[in-house]
């Protein structure tokens, strides 16, 4: 791919990284534009949820009464586990698409991968990581 990229660069002596710089500039311009445009063109209907720092369901203040003002740790644990299995899925999709080309070797590899994640799953499950209460 890199070779292709280099080949595509004009040979007139222009640095091959000029397009990269252009990309950065465009990205920055887009970000600034979006932030600046929103209050100008958007409707102004505020409510409580709108003013939250993140729309992820946690009230930053006041803190929950249970647990000494902190969220239960199990919440974060579950979130982490979700990410773990999310990543597993991310691997499974490309494997499924190319399983023909990968052949038997690919199957063995993906089984090993699933087994490894399975060990972790077994550990979390047996040690109570999935018990919400």
């Amino acid at each position, binding site marked *: *791919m*890199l*070779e*292709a*990229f280099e080949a595509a660069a004009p040979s007139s002596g222009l640095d091959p990284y000029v397009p990269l710089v252009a990309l950065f500039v465009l990205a920055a311009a887009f970000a600034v534009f979006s932030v600046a445009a929103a209050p100008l063109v958007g409707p102004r209907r505020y409510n409580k949820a709108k003013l939250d720092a993140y729309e992820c369901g946690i009230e930053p203040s006041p803190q929950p009464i249970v647990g000494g003002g902190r969220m239960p740790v199990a919440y974060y644990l579950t979130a982490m586990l979700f990410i773990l299995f999310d990543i597993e899925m991310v691997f499974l999709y490309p494997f499924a698409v*190319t399983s023909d*080309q*990968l*052949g038997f*070797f*690919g199957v063995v590899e993906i089984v090993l991968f699933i*087994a*490894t994640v399975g*060990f*972790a799953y*077994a*550990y979390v*499950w*047996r*040690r109570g990581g999935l018990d919400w209460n």
Partner: protein
Amino acid sequence: MQEQFLAQAQQQVNAPDIAYGAIAPVLIVLGFACLSVLVEAFVAKERRWGLQIGVAAAAIVLAGASLAAFISSNDAAGGPTGKTGVTTLAGAVSVDKPALFLWGTLLALGVLALLLIADRTVGGDMQTEVFPLFLFALGGMMVFCAANNLLTMFIALEVLSLPLYLMCGLARKRRLISQEAAVKYFLLGAFASAFFLYGLALLYGYAGSVKLADIATAAVGTDRSDTLLFGGLGLLVVGLLFKGSVGPFHTWTPDVYQGAPTSVTAFMAACTKVAAFGGILRVLTVAFQSTQWEWRGVLWGVAIASMAIGAIFGLTQTDVKRMIAYSSVAHAGFLLVGAIAMNTDGLSSTLFYLLAYGFTTIASFGVISLVRSGSGEATDLSQWAGLAKRSPLLAGVFTFLLLALAGIPLTSGFIGKFVVFSAALRDGMAPLVVIALVFSAVAAFFYLRVVVLMYFSEPAEDGPTVSVPGAFTTVAITLGTFVTLLLGVLPGFVLNWASSGGFLS
């Protein structure tokens, strides 16, 4: 571009050849680590501790046996000196002579560390999770030493680091300081990993490959941008130096050494250093030998900084574990002196130094774990005053180990320094050697301070007690001390092995 990509994808992917015999030690360690996770999951709590020790011990013993088997078959295969080794997994892992030496070192040090971790009689008492974590870390270190491309190296770096972060936080008695250490190590470690990864990206941009050998080829006579090469090298090296606790990237070391459970500190201090310098040696030798005249001066500076920081900061430490931490920073500087002497002597002497330093360090931490007061380990130096009067044997052993760290003859530390410095001299780095000698003299002062304190001070009223060590700790300390003495008197065998061959790219 897309067509090109698709065209590539349609070809049948061939499975790479795998030399199972060569990588068996790693597979065994990592396989047993998975087994160890299952033990955590399915075995009842009261039976876990003993079983986990068995699993970990079996892993190391089997890995050692397979390593020995491979070495003997490898030696038998080649000419009089044996084959140089094999490169396997599509060139991702290179099992060559230095890698074999480092694996042997790691497994041997792993046995000692495991003994310390497994001893519950003197307040080791960690969660049983420490064993799978230990095995994963060990496996990661082994891959790290043998990784032949930067991506494999990065994965190995994470595999060895993440368990270590967790292990630091496992102390049950001194919970807060232990967890603080874990978080600090994790945050700074992530920071350093980022450096490594940025460096990797820049080098890929430079060479179009992450293989060490390809980078070396690219660095010889191309008109590509040297900014990418040296920027990448700098960031990559920073990530590696962090793991080896080389100053000024050492800042985590004292806090983490102090906070982590002592047996974990022992493991970390000895084995991480072996792995990190194994990686540094391989990267510098295989990928960057041709550009050494550009980067060597900079690493001179880093080595000097590390020796100075270790020696000077160590002078006023009041905590034994922090003192040993700064000592390890100074030692990292000495090791770097050997690592940048780009000749075969530099390689073999650094390998020897790593082995010698590892044994001495683990034994030292074993001793430290025995000196306790009511609230736990008595690591404050003032509590060590007059210890020799109360338990002369322990003080004697610790004195010997400190002398080894200071590099006094009859100890492995002396031979290690001697071979490293003579390799550096041979490579024309006389000024650096003189500076190193000066700083080793300064560092000797703080080791002797502890000796003087133990022997010539009146014991404190409420001084610590020395607990009777369990069998495991006794064995670990005895072995470590014995090897320190043995390598000081008869280093020939190990030196021969260390100099049996170079890297295979």
